[in-house]
């Protein structure tokens, strides 16, 4: 498949992830959309690595995955602590700092 297909897919996946973060109510689904964005970036990196014939892009994907794992763990821990306080996952309810 040509490079443009992979990058086009990566772009669409990224935008779907952004839409998920902007539009969804459930905070957990927002987290999942962030993972979707990271995934899209991984596809782009791997495609460019193949395009240039080197492996640096794949190494970068490896590190992105490790960082995504760390971020998911800590983010979910924060969210659990928050949930214990507010008893809801609806992000529109987290409005203590609104004017």
């Amino acid at each position, binding site marked *: 498949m040509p490079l443009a*297909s992979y990058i086009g897919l990566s772009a669409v996946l990224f935008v779907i992830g952004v839409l998920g973060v902007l539009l969804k109510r459930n905070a957990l689904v927002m987290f999942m959309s962030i993972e979707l964005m990271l995934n899209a970036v991984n596809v782009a990196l791997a495609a460019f690595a193949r395009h240039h014939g080197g492996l640096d892009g794949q190494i970068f994907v490896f590190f992105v995955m490790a960082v995504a794992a760390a971020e998911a763990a800590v983010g979910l821990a924060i969210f659990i602590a928050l*949930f214990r306080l507010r008893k809801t996952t609806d992000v529109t309810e987290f409005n203590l700092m609104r004017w």
Partner: protein
Amino acid sequence: MSLETLLASFATVMALVSALLVVWQRSAVVSALFLVLNLGSVAILFLTLGGEFLAAVQVIVYAGAIMVLFLFVIMLLNPAPPKQRFASGPVVTGLTFGLGVVFVAALVRGVMSLAGSGQEMSAVGPGYGSTRSIGELLFTDYLYPFELTGVLLLVAMVGAVVLARRQHHEEV
């Protein structure tokens, strides 16, 4: 059309559809399952790009561990599916979707203008993307980020345990 192109096209379509369904679903658990499907199709795409180690790591780490963590948290918290699908009203949601489409069009236009992006990618040597070659790079050129990532994972582990601990509130 070779088997590989067929597989890549199938994986692309599956990735797109599952990503859309992640955002479209009301229930968080079903969203998580569609995200697992998306991660699986991206693993297939890594395979067609010659990254076999990467595909295996994607399945083991992303689909096999991170998403299990997500499912765990969703099931522990057990939120009821919300009445409304999206956080904002229909006008804002429609506008955002429209902007998204415009953004994708701009990105794809930008990519098509890259030299050599329209033709099939050139073949790579044997052992491209193999565990050995990635291991060699990780432990020579990228040793410092590798070790730092180890420390990062340790910090994340400790942080997650501390943050999710039950606090014992003192009664005033």
